[in-house]
């Protein structure tokens, strides 16, 4: 079994009286694509916020590549190789696409030449070379999402966290994203963690899924098995009445 790149151990995060994550534990193997699903308010985005350093959990820890990263500031975790995209895009309206990607490329590149190479490479990989000189405020949703992926890849991550990449996209655009997630995983050897609402999407990309409900992990396993799991059905469809 390959060694885990990410270990989440007994993480609990509370907001006042609300427990957003309750002793959540799981491992992500290097090279995998895993999906994290769950109804609204299940704690998915909170989990990403804990992993990337935006929130500090009350209990438990996050271990990335053998190092405990809980409590480190986001830029340190980014430097270690964790990248992320947001559910609701967080663009740079006053930066061109090229400049936005440059910010990420500066993280690991040694000199300007390498920065230029990374920027060219990433823009081509994501297929937005033609948008290079456009400002963030001029882009539509799919272009913004692709720019976020390009920005994340420019930091040369080993682990990419993707938060609801396909919300609001057309079926054609969703296919485009699915293909890209596979290419990121295979061609760039990047481990991918996806948060998703849409079951059909997650089925097509991940080998293993984790289901969260009210902050607790209620299922972990193959996607097709999730369809038959009592707890998952209950969480998604409600209690069966007899």
């Amino acid at each position: 079994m390959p060694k885990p790149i990410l270990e989440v151990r007994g993480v609990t995060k509370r907001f006042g009286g609300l427990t957003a994550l309750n002793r959540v534990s799981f491992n992500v193997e290097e090279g995998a694509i895993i999906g994290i699903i769950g109804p609204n308010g299940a704690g998915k985005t909170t989990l990403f916020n804990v992993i990337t350093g935006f929130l500090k959990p009350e209990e438990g820890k996050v271990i990335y590549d053998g190092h405990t990263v809980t409590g480190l500031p986001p830029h340190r975790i980014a430097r270690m190789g964790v990248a992320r995209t947001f559910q609701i895009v967080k663009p740079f309206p006053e930066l061109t696409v090229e400049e936005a990607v440059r910010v990420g490329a500066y993280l690991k590149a040694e000199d300007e030449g390498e920065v230029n190479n990374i920027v060219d490479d990433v823009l081509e990989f994501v297929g937005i070379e033609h948008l290079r000189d456009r400002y963030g405020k001029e882009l539509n949703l799919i272009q913004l999402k692709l720019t976020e992926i390009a920005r994340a890849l420019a930091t040369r991550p080993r682990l990419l966290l993707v938060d609801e990449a396909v919300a609001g996209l057309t079926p054609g655009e969703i296919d485009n994203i699915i293909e890209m997630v596979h290419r990121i995983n295979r061609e760039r050897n990047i481990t991918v963690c996806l948060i998703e609402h849409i079951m059909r999407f997650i089925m097509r990309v991940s080998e293993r899924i984790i289901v969260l409900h009210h902050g607790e992990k209620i299922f972990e396993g193959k996607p097709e098995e999730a369809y038959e799991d009592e707890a998952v059905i209950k969480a998604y469809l409600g209690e069966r009445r007899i």
Partner: protein
Amino acid sequence: MLSPTLLLQNLIFGVLLGSIYALAAIGLSLIFGVVNLTNFAHGDFIMLAMYISYFLGVSLKLDPILTPIIGFPVFFLLGIAVYLAIFHKIIRAPPLSQIAVTVGLLVLLRNFALAVWHAEPKSIPRTLLGYSYRLGSILIPADRLTGMLISIATFLILHLFLTKTKTGIAMRALADNLDSAALMGVNVRNLNMLTCALGIGIVALAGGILLTFQPVNPMTGLIYGLLTWSIVAMAGLGGVSGILLSGIIFGLADAFTAAFWDPRAREITIYILFILLLWFRPKGLFGRR
């Protein structure tokens, strides 16, 4: 009375004055845009910079136009100190709390000046630039011309810094979206600190230039606070060129009020411009938010 010469003369005065006002406002714009901090004490930093110029001019017999050579590094460090001691603790606070804290800072600075330099206005007569160039019947004061050149040079350097360097692009990314910037490895705290150091540092340049043609008293911060906030509001958030243009608009308003109405009425004009602006274009003329 509306002779073409007088119009042209005040047009030139306005542009000269405006570019210096813009230099005084750019630090406020940087701190507001990048650090996301509503700093009501900015005018009083300008007042303090003018006093520091005065102090250096008197004690070291320096020409005020040269005082920023010492003033800039001092204010750069002051920016770091103020960031670490005060601003850092309120960057995530709501604007009202930021206003309350920076108004406290304003009162502190104002009373510090009052205690050290007393209430009567201070000025430096000994500038080497106390002469004017003459083009026909038009006068171009050398102090203000030098000020404009320094201002334009500073804006040019800032523009290149913000568009061509790693740190500059990261600063703009931070201004646009803090979370995204942090995720891409931008050290938010250090960059905020640098922005404050730069923003307050540039105030020292403006203070030195202003003192060549205007006296300073402990209440000077009042007029410059209002003026610089109005400039920033008119420019909106965005590039540095917006601040330069907006500064020049206020400079022109200032010059024409002084020439055709009353020099003491300049604050009224600034207020009226500011209110009209908030009324019709709250995003600013060149900005996005």
